[in-house]
């Protein structure tokens, strides 16, 4: 169970875009989201593009308020008012049949049919998303009766038991109420429910944040195992970058409503290119290795209602230089040898005549992947 998954190989393309082996299953293009209307609107997401490949675990990391949950909700059209999607597309490519769905153009009925079936979501604080007055079995069966009305109740019940077993809960707990289960078990029921109809994409919004490390470890291992068996793709949202590095194939780092770096987990960890990524990685004291003084990142996370001009990170950035407070850097491929699929939004890597600080520069000879 504790075995490490083979990471999805990534191919090198010249554009640096959409490079995961296996076709894209979910494409988010230039997605923008505002909270509120008119002049008082807060731009929670700005031109976010992200591609999820088949069978890939994509980690989405950032501090609270950076827009990672907003991205998940907007991409599934679950965003509650006053959230407004102001632009962009979300395209779902089914890998099982040849469907291509434009999520923002679907009718309510189509959307209802597609949810759970194609794409499922495990919410933040999933422990409290179960209805306390129904047995967990009924809640699991509800999902299936809504989408597979042709099957009998007995079949659904058998499937519900199978699902519970799959996530490591004894099937006789099917008649338990949520309060009779521990937090970790409730979380696993939520995961079982998301997997009930074998969706192709599972979005997990901080699924382990409320749990202890021991339980977190068990759930993450379970998830990796299920992913290997069932081959779905995962978008895993969390603020814990060190967890993502272990779990994800690719990681996108968000800051102030933008993706500022997008790279394979290994590249991101060993060779961060954006100063914020570097700072974030240095905000977690290591459990092993040498003990050293760490500083975190100076300043506070940005206030989205009053973002600084230019790069939103520049007031906290130790390497800020001329263009940073005037222009906003675009997320783009670094276009260098040995970079693979890699995008970063930082002027340090944008052809300016400036010395790139050593720890952010590309290593002359990238190390071989350890897995």
């Amino acid at each position, binding site marked *: *169970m*504790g*075995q*490490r998954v083979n990471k999805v190989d990534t191919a090198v393309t010249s554009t640096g875009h959409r490079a995961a082996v296996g076709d894209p299953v979910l494409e988010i293009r230039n997605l923008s989201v505002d909270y509120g209307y008119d002049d008082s609107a807060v731009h929670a997401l700005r031109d976010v593009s992200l591609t999820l490949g088949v069978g890939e675990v994509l980690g989405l990391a950032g*501090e*609270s308020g950076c827009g990672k949950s907003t991205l998940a909700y907007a991409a599934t059209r679950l965003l509650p008012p006053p959230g407004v999607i102001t632009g962009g597309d979300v395209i779902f490519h089914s890998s099982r049949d040849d469907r291509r769905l434009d999520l923002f153009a679907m009718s309510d009925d189509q959307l209802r049919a597609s949810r759970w079936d194609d794409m499922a979501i495990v919410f933040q604080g999933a422990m409290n998303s179960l209805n306390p007055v129904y047995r967990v079995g009924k809640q699991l069966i509800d999902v299936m009766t809504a989408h597979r009305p042709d099957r009998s109740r007995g079949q659904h019940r058998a499937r519900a038991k199978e699902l519970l077993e799959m996530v490591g809960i004894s099937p006789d707990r099917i008649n338990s109420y949520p309060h009779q289960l*521990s937090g*970790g078990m409730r979380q696993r029921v939520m995961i079982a429910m998301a997997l009930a109809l074998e969706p192709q994409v599972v979005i997990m919004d901080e699924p382990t944040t409320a749990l*202890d*490390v*021991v*339980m*977190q*470890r*068990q759930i993450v*291992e379970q998830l990796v195992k299920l992913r290997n068996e069932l081959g779905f793709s995962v978008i895993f949202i969390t*603020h*814990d*970058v*060190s*967890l993502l*590095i*272990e779990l994800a194939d690719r990681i996108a780092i968000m800051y102030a409503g933008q993706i500022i770096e997008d790279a394979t987990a290994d590249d991101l*960890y060993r060779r961060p290119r954006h100063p914020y990524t570097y*700072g*974030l990685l*240095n*905000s*977690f*004291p*290591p*459990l*092993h*290795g040498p*003990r050293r*003084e*760490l*500083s*975190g*990142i*100076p300043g*506070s*996370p940005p206030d989205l209602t009053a973002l600084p001009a230019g790069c939103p990170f520049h007031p906290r950035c130790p390497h800020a230089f001329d263009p940073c407070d005037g222009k906003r850097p675009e997320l783009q491929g670094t276009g260098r040898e040995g970079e693979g699929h890699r995008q970063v939004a930082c002027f340090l890597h944008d052809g300016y005549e400036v010395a790139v600080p050593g720890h952010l520069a590309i290593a002359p000879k990238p190390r071989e992947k*350890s*897995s």
Partner: protein
Amino acid sequence: MAQREGPATDAATTPTEDPIMLEARALTKHFPVRGLRGRGKAVRAVESVDLTLRRGQVVALVGESGSGKSTVARLLAQLYPATSGQVLLRGEPVKVRFGRRFRAYCRQVQMIFQDPFASLNPIHTVRYVLTRSLRIHHRGLSKEELETRLAGLLEQVHLRPAERYIDKFPHELSGGQRQRIAIARALGARPTVLLADEPVSMLDVSIRLGVLNLLKELKEELDLAILYITHDIASARYFADRTVVMYAGEVVESGDSESVTQNPAHPYTQLLVSSAPDPDKLADAAERPARGEPPSLIKPPSGCRFHPRCPFAMDRCKTESPPSLPAGDGRVAACWLYAEGVEKPAGLEVKA
């Protein structure tokens, strides 16, 4: 000042000469269960915990949620009366509930809470919050003295210039700044002991270290004894001199932070360390033996409370509660595997 050594847990292990500021001896807290069915039952939240806080030292108390670490802090802060056991301030047993004596105790022992969004009253400005702390604990300050002390407090927690923050309301400050105000409020009493109950877990990841580094600096500057409660064992290693691990209301292991995290002795500590995310250990994620969940504290398992989950459990573990036993490197572990004459099973030694 009484130079008494603590009981078993610490007597053998601490070579440091720093005087003991606050000490818990066999501290126990049972919460009665309410309701018709709960008659006579109790949640055994904290069971016979020994703890020593020395001047200028940070002690981390690590454990899962529900392991009783916050209850220990509250017992030490005298916010709860203990069921049994003693709290000693500079060697003197203390038992205060309210009034003048409670206030005098607070002057020495201050607490910082987890959530700076909840621990600061939203309708009061920073000035009011800090003034209260100064006025209550140091009567008869003149206006000028008060002003300088206020500015000094903000300066101490790195909120400069002080004028920019002094008249702000909590909602105008970020989480990190709020927690700094909470720390300044605690410092206003000029305490000798700080009890920090998960002081950074509600903060954004990028600013956590800033607050921890601040506490470290204050510890050195003011020679504070700090109890740092956390569920993150990696931050305990970073911040604390000594680490005490709790499981289901009991202390299972204590020792200096480096050896507890690098070479954990108790099977529970081993589980905790191996469960923590560790990007560098990519390749050799070992099979993790212990499974399951923490037990109910109303009816805790007999013997060692960890035995139902422990991969090394022996017959003895089911019946007898293990005492604190020396486990090498100046550490003590409450585990029968470290009793004399017990052969260590394979796989017990965990490499760093």
